[in-house]
């Protein structure tokens, strides 16, 4: 054995999308990951290890699914690079397990034949043996093996949980005996062209870098046959030189009577025909049922209607159905807060940390779980049944013009309920650039967290001033604002930033299958688990940090100051119940303090309680104003001055960074009403409507004019005030994209708010 003892043998799994590659990988390694019925399920690099008796530990690499080594997209290029040992940290695989769909061997053998040119020991796994059997197709595995040069051929049915002993034995044989599949005997013109290309590149690279060109035969073939291939990046000479050599080689092929760009397919398919002859009986209409279903589901009218009906169901489930468990979570969090608050009555810092920091932080990411679980339940159903590809087919035209494709629809739709599951759902998009663009766009969809902001502003100002009708219109306008900005943004992003060349959108519409409950539930569980593990911690951290910034320094002097002012005000204004004032002023902030003072009459008791509450809220407001974030808000207010925002709104914006809806309770605190206000709180509405500028040029004028109100709503429609979304973007696309998304959305939101205020002020 030549294997170095330090590194276990690396076995790569190669195959078309949708062949059950991942299922086989999971069954072999025991390391489960998602299983889909949608081309392009495997996006990230997944590896695992298994033990085989007589061989020991083997490293297994699950490569992204692809149809051909002629690479078009980024994930396909990764496969070529991995197979040729061009990926840092990934050596050339010691063996290949080629997974093929036994129900469409003709097409699937194409990739296998291409892979045989690599010269790596390989075996063939024919999946879906159960379907083959049910259809009465006979496959002579022994004959196939002989025709392919004696490589191991295993017939399995991974979906049925069939035994994979043959695959294990095959892998053992690959490592111990290294059986190689015979490469194609190329026609003389192609062989000559490859030789000339090799010689030419060796000559040029020796001249350039002093050593011959280190390309393998398979890499030379990619250069000769493909219009674009990552191999080009690994040749150490100028692009023009390579292209000149390639042109010369292709000319040879052309003179031999073959179109050089088609020669590979034509010759491989010729060989496939001779390999399959008598080894596989005629396949009687693999997708007869599927084709009948498609006559309805792809119908221009009925297909579209069914699609929209399905999407309405998905949306309502994510939007409404999820709100039930979300309410439970909210209630649970409130109960916990009360319990912890009561238990920690004695130490205000711990109390606030526990209730407003930790418990609120846990609640902040738990509240997303129902939506994620429900959305991924539907996504798993759509993918595993094979419908997702049809949905992409039906919707593609809507997205094609701005560089996206039909697969962007479901994530964008989910964005209207919540951007967090929407961003996670972009995993179904196989084209990495379209996926990035969609991740960027999903947060613009008007999610349910924006609703409280709209509700508060519209109910407090728009409806009273303009009437119900305009209130409704304003709500609709806010829902469309995100879309109106996102569509041009998509166009600019794909055209100028990502520079997406028009990607071929060749999509296989796979066979319909009944989703397996086990697989669906696994996907649901895994999506929830991954969210909590990967994004939950960050969301939690953000919430706690913002709590700390809003709490500290929590100066006692502030409290004393407020008490003094309050007492003075009370004494000056009324002077009727000095006892109650004194009680309220001297007692601790807590309501119980006032109640314990045992005022003589009930109404006096109520009055004292109300005053104590007022004092408590005033103190809270003073503390938040004096907190680090509050001080920063006052300092940063000039930034938002052009939008007509005062420092209280500015603090609200800063404090609502973890989640937009926090603005409502922050406004409640800064306007001395306590943090428990709801969006439809009458006191908050009146209080906002009554607030006037305390200083500056507009002193005495109301702060919340219509231009300001619409400015606030526009700001929240476009801004990126959602720590959960940003952390999910960071986990899916990297921190740089999260930062870019934040900067872009915040800038856009600011510009929109300022424009709204300035133009609105001119008009009114």
């Amino acid at each position, binding site marked *: 054995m030549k294997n170095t003892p330090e590194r276990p043998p690396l076995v790569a799994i190669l195959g078309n999308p949708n062949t059950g590659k991942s299922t086989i990988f999971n069954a072999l390694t025991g390391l489960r990951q998602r299983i889909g019925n949608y081309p392009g399920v495997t996006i990230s690099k997944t590896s695992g290890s298994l033990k085989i008796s007589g061989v020991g530990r083997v490293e297994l690499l699950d490569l992204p699914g692809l149809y051909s080594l002629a690479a078009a997209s980024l994930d396909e290029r990764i496969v070529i690079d991995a197979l040729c040992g061009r990926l840092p940290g990934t050596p050339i695989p010691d063996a290949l397990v080629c997974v093929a769909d036994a*129900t469409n061997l*003709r097409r699937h053998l194409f990739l296998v034949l291409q892979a045989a040119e690599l010269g790596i020991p390989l075996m063939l796994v024919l999946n879906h043996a159960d379907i083959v059997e049910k259809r009465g197709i006979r496959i002579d595995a022994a004959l196939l093996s002989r025709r392919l040069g004696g490589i191991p051929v295993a017939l399995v049915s991974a979906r049925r949980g069939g035994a994979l002993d043959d695959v294990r034995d095959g892998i053992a044989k690959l490592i111990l005996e290294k059986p190689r599949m015979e490469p194609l005997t190329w026609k003389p013109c192609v062989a000559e062209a490859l030789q000339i290309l090799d010689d030419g590149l060796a000559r040029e690279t020796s001249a350039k870098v002093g050593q011959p060109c280190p390309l393998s035969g398979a890499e030379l073939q990619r250069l000769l046959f493909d219009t674009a291939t990552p191999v080009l990046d690994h040749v150490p000479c100028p692009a023009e030189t390579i292209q000149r050599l390639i042109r010369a080689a292709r000319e040879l092929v052309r003179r031999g009577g073959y179109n050089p760009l088609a020669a590979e397919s034509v010759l491989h398919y010729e060989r496939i025909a001779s390999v399959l002859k008598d080894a596989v009986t005629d396949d009687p209409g693999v997708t007869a049922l599927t084709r009948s279903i498609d006559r309805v589901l792809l119908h221009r009218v009925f297909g579209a209607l069914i699609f929209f009906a399905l999407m309405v169901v998905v949306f309502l489930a994510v939007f409404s159905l999820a709100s039930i468990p979300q309410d439970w979570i909210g209630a649970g969090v409130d109960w916990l807060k009360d319990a912890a608050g009561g238990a920690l009555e004695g130490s205000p810092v711990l109390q606030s940390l526990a209730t407003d920091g930790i418990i609120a932080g846990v609640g902040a990411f738990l509240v997303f779980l129902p939506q994620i679980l429900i959305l991924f339940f539907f996504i798993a159903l759509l993918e595993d049944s094979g419908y997702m590809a049809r949905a992409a087919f039906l919707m593609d035209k809507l997205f094609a013009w701005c560089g996206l494709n*039909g697969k962007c629809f479901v994530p964008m739709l989910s964005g209207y309920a919540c951007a967090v599951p929407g961003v996670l759902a972009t995993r179904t998009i196989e084209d990495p650039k379209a996926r990035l663009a969609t991740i960027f766009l999903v947060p613009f969809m008007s999610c349910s967290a924006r609703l409280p902001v709209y509700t508060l502003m519209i109910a407090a100002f728009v409806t009273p001033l303009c009437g119900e009708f305009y209130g409704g219109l304003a709500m609709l306008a806010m829902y469309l604002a995100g879309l109106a900005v996102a569509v041009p943004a998509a166009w600019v992003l794909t055209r100028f930033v990502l520079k997406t060349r028009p990607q071929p959108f060749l999509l296989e519409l796979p066979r319909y299958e009944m989703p397996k409950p086990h697989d669906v539930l696994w996907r649901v569980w895994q999506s929830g688990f991954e969210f909590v593990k990967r994004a939950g911690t960050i969301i939690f951290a953000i919430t706690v940090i913002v709590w700390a910034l809003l709490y500290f320094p929590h100066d006692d002097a502030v409290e004393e100051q407020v008490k003094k002012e309050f007492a003075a005000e009370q004494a000056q204004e009324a002077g009727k119940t000095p006892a109650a004032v004194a009680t309220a002023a001297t007692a601790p902030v807590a309501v119980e303090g006032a109640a314990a003072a045992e005022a003589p009459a009930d109404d006096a008791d109520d009055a004292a309680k109300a005053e104590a509450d007022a004092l408590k809220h005033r103190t809270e407001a003073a503390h938040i104003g004096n907190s680090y974030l509050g001080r920063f808000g006052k300092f940063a207010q000039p930034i938002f001055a052009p939008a007509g925002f005062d420092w209280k709104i500015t603090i609200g914006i800063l404090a609502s960074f973890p989640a937009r809806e926090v603005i409502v309770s922050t406004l409640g605190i800064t306007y001395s009403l306590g943090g428990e206000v709801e969006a439809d709180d009458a006191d908050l509405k009146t209080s906002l409507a009554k607030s006037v500028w305390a200083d500056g040029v507009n002193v005495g004028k109301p702060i919340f004019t219509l231009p300001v109100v619409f400015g606030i709503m526009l700001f929240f429609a476009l801004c990126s005030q959602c720590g959960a979304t940003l952390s999910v973007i960071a986990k899916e696309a990297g921190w740089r994209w999260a930062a870019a998304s934040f900067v872009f959305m915040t800038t856009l939101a600011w510009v929109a708010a300022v424009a709204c205020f300035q133009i609105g002020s001119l008009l009114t």
Partner: protein
Amino acid sequence: MRSIPLPQLSNGQRARVTRLRTERPVDQRLLAFGLMPGAVLEFSASAPLGDPIAVFFQNQCVSLRRAEAFSVEVELLETPASTGAAAASPAVSAPAAKTPPAAAL
């Protein structure tokens, strides 16, 4: 039988591939799917907004955009009851005409 671009077929029509462009990545993908001269295909569906289209060939159903499908030239196998407008209109196959004859494939 005259060749027409694939997108000019209508639902349910069967045709044989006569020519295929080869320069674009999508053409190479079609070749990898086994769509080459001589292959018989059926036009399965066209999406509600007219694009993309779905084509059935060799026991597989593949969706592609119309612009990409212009790579493929076909000849009709069965003439449907109505001699469709597609067959009557002059074939706009200028791009395909420039391609080196794929008959050599």
